[in-house]
């Protein structure tokens, strides 16, 4: 029973979160020099461009092995160096990521990134065909995955010209045939991309706004895990804040794909380039990515909202642990899948006490009971929603980490989004909302959410009827079904007039974020904000608390409706209207 459960109150959430964030900021500022500023951004925009840190040394250092970053920007704490070394060891070469560049009026087009040297001989690592940071093969519907057989027949040139057909040569793979990329992306990889060649772009610098919520027990944690996953794409679009990478304006507003691609430690076999010999299987996603499988509601709740068809993404899992969990321990299938999916990855480092054996009284009297070990494993693969196991040592329970929010510049905005997510989790639990989306659609949402100004321009798949479906039917309510027209149609509040009957039957519709959050009559969508607004009075808050809460939600609502632009748009406008900007996408 986690202790934190007894101390939560929505009043404190509304009033104190902002203060708490401001206190952190003040604390950090005490350590800064007078000419230093504290910016809470996802990634420093100029990291990798020109001079970006004090005492910047030369690139190609032994630790990072990066052509654009020098070792001096690596945090001297050992775990970062170990992690990066581990990624390099496992993958065999430095992972490359490409972010499509933004085409402005005077941008040199086709865009060639001059940061990386073109000489194939001197470069320790070839340019691997970038995945454009996109790590899932089941993302865009228009992406045609090139079958490996056909790609192998393509010319295996070693030029690093960005216009060449995508090829890559592994640095340390002695017997592997010349590989070729198996997934084309949109735009074609490495074409007009800003190239990043270090895991430091993903971890160790910058980050995300991560919200960890404590659930009462595993059942609740599973519900939250599943229902928050479809929301993650929407939140990424709402909080988009990273249009500038490595000193260039990019064609993406979010940092999610870059982070996922930068820490990609899959070997060539796992990426599908080399034939499978020692690896467990093809891994379609990097270890940071979107979830592969829903955990589904607990079997005891008899909640039929979840259907097997939602888990339509192929993924590899560790069969030994799966069967052990399922047969020996009796864990239900979905949870066993979810956990055994973790075991195809490797952790890169661990403190010695975790690895020590039991009974060594001199060094380590406490044997690791596996909890921290497992937590490290969970931390290895970071998804948009993480299910974190409890830890009896620290007294925490089952937790859900929500990872896809981008950090905003001001405390008020961060506090508003935190409040929104926490309120949303309360609403999901109280109303038992059903937001299930097939995983493939969720991945498509995530890909769309990162495009420029996705808040206003993009359509997202969303479940039309979030209250229904608990009885297994797509539009049912989980209750005694109504007979004919008795009762339901007699009332003033009848269902909104849907002209097309297929709108009523459609389980998923493509909506703009405004429609998702603020509701839409044409599709019969109760907006998420409306549900939250109807939930607030039932919490019986004090007047001032409620007003503060509503003011925070107002920010989210205005972002969704377009009245306020996202941070990414603000940055773009700032850059493009700056007198020194020469409209060539160089910042």
């Amino acid at each position, binding site marked *: 029973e986690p202790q934190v459960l007894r101390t*939560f109150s929505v009043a404190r959430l509304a009033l104190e979160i902002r203060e708490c964030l401001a206190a952190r900021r003040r604390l950090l500022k005490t350590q800064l020099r007078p000419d230093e500023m504290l910016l809470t951004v996802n990634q420093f925009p100029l990291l990798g461009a020109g001079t970006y840190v004090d005492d910047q040394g030369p690139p190609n250092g032994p630790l990072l092995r990066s052509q654009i970053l020098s070792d001096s920007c690596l945090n001297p704490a050992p775990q970062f160096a170990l992690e990066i070394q581990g990624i390099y060891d496992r993958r065999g070469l430095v992972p490359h990521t490409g972010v499509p560049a933004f085409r402005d009026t005077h941008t040199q087009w086709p865009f060639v990134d001059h940061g990386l040297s073109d000489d194939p001989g001197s470069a320790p690592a070839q340019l691997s065909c970038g995945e454009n940071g996109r790590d899932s093969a089941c993302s865009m519907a228009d992406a045609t995955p090139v079958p490996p057989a056909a790609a192998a027949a393509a010319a295996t040139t070693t030029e690093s010209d960005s216009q060449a057909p995508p090829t890559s040569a592994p640095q340390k793979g002695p017997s592997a045939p010349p590989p070729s990329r198996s997934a084309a992306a949109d735009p074609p990889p490495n074409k007009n991309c800003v190239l990043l060649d270090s895991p430091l772009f993903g971890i160790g610098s910058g980050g995300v706004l991560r919200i960890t919520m404590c659930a009462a027990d595993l059942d609740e944690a599973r519900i939250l895990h599943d229902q928050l996953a479809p929301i993650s794409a929407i939140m990424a679009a709402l909080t988009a804040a990273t249009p500038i990478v490595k000193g260039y304006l990019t064609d993406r507003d979010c940092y999610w794909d870059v982070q996922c691609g930068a820490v990609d430690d899959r070997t060539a076999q796992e990426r599908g380039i080399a034939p499978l010999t020692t690896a467990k299987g093809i891994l379609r996603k990097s270890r940071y990515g979107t979830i592969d499988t829903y955990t589904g509601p607990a079997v005891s709740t008899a909640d039929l909202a979840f259907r097997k068809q939602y888990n339509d993404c192929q993924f590899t899992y560790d069969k030994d642990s799966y069967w052990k969990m399922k047969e020996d321990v009796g864990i239900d299938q979905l949870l066993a899948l979810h956990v055994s999916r973790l075991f195809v990855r490797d952790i890169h480092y661990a403190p010695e006490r975790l690895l020590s054996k039991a009974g060594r009284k001199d060094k380590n009297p406490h044997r690791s009971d596996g909890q921290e070990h497992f937590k490290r494993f969970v931390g290895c693969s970071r998804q948009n929603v993480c299910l974190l196991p409890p830890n009896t040592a620290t007294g925490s329970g089952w937790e859900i980490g929500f990872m896809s929010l981008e950090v905003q510049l001001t405390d008020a905005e961060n506090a508003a989004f935190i409040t929104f997510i926490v309120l949303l989790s309360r609403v999901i639990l109280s109303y038992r909302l059903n937001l299930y989306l097939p995983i493939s659609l969720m991945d498509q949402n995530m890909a769309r959410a990162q495009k420029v100004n996705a808040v206003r321009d993009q359509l997202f798949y969303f479940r039309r009827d979030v209250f229904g479906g608990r009885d297994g039917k797509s539009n049912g309510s989980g209750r005694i079904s109504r007979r004919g027209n*008795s009762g339901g149609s007699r009332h003033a509040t009848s269902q909104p007039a849907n002209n097309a009957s297929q709108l009523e039957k459609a389980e998923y519709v493509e909506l703009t974020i405004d429609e998702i959050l603020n509701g839409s009559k044409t599709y019969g969508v*109760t907006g998420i904000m409306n549900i939250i607004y109807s939930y607030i009075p039932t919490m019986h808050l004090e007047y001032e608390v409620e007003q503060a809460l509503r003011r925070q939600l107002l920010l989210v609502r205005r972002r969704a409706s377009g009245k306020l632009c996202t941070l990414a748009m603000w940055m773009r406008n700032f850059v493009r209207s700056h007198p020194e900007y020469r409209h060539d996408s160089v910042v």
Partner: protein
Amino acid sequence: MTRRRLAITEKVPTTPRKVVVYTDNLMTSNGVRNATAQESDKELEYALGDTLNTALVISTSYRFDPELNMLEILDPHNPRNHIEVKGLTDYQVSVKLFILPAAVDVNRRPSPLYVKQALTCIRKQLGAVTIEELFVSFADVSAGRDSATAPEAAAAATATSPGAAVLTNGSAGSLPLHPQEPDQLPTRRNRSRDDRRGHKARGLGRRRPGEAGDGEVPGNGDGGNDDFEANDMSRYLKIWRLLSHLKAEGHVTRIGICDATKQQLENLHWLSGVMPDMVQIRVDDSQLSVDDESAAGEADGPSDARAGDGDASRELREYALAHKISVRSHSDAPKMLTNANFQTLAADYRINERFPTTEVPPEGYRIDLMRPRWVANYNVALRNRGLVANRGYIVMASSDCVLDPNRVSRFAYPS
């Protein structure tokens, strides 16, 4: 009548038919999607319709108690919603009781019997719980906040009340008064008869010294008197005393009142000696969705949707702060369940047919249409987790025996 009578029985007038309807748990029911809690009257109607449909039409799961002549329509989906306190978190029950215009006793004052009845029904639904917060909302007080037209209660009133009433805005009024019966001074006796029409409409009268008014109504000097009448909470005293008894005995932890102005609160305190623990003020939809207001709207909150109202609410909030009254907000409609709506529902689901046809009204009376007497909105929340587990409505309606001019006794004079 002694107090030992069953709580679910009324004194006078004799009410041959009673109906109590319990709605489903609105957190998990189908009705949530069609109405939000912001439009609580619509939500209530929808929930009522849903329950009546399920209980009367689809599956006929109601109970008729012939002794009390009461039709009890329990929650068809969760027959017993008793709270079992699990070890992890504490449930807190809040109840808001809407005393509708029809819930009056013979003196035309809101009757505390209905409050007891409501609490019994709540206990039936939820088990023997301590109610954490009990709000009581009087229809006259709430409805009188806006400049509304004549209340439907008065319109559908028995044939005994003469005249029509025009409600005016009690505070800083904009409409002048229409004197009803200028020859009647509002003494204590007469006031009780006129209460039924809504205490806002009054004739000429004396001004009570020392009672602060909101301001002068332009024109006639009735403004001061009107404020006096508006602020007079003496008709709610009985219920208020009952609430304070409940609080003293421990059944209810905190009591509150809805839509009261500062003057009304002062008056209540002066009359009864008990200060409410909470007061609920109404926050309009226009104040809630200040989406198109300028940034000033965001900073000031609700205070610029209606300037007059904003001042009043700020005044109230300061008063509450000074007296340690907790201020809550609600957006319930002023008229929660009108007689007409309920009668439409009753007709739709043919409630009256469930009663036995053998009942005979007393001599010279007829059975009137059913009127809803009170609506209770209960809310079971897990405060320290921010979740709401259970939320629903209970409605009680009954019909009066009224004088029937058509049924003349055969012992009357031959015409």
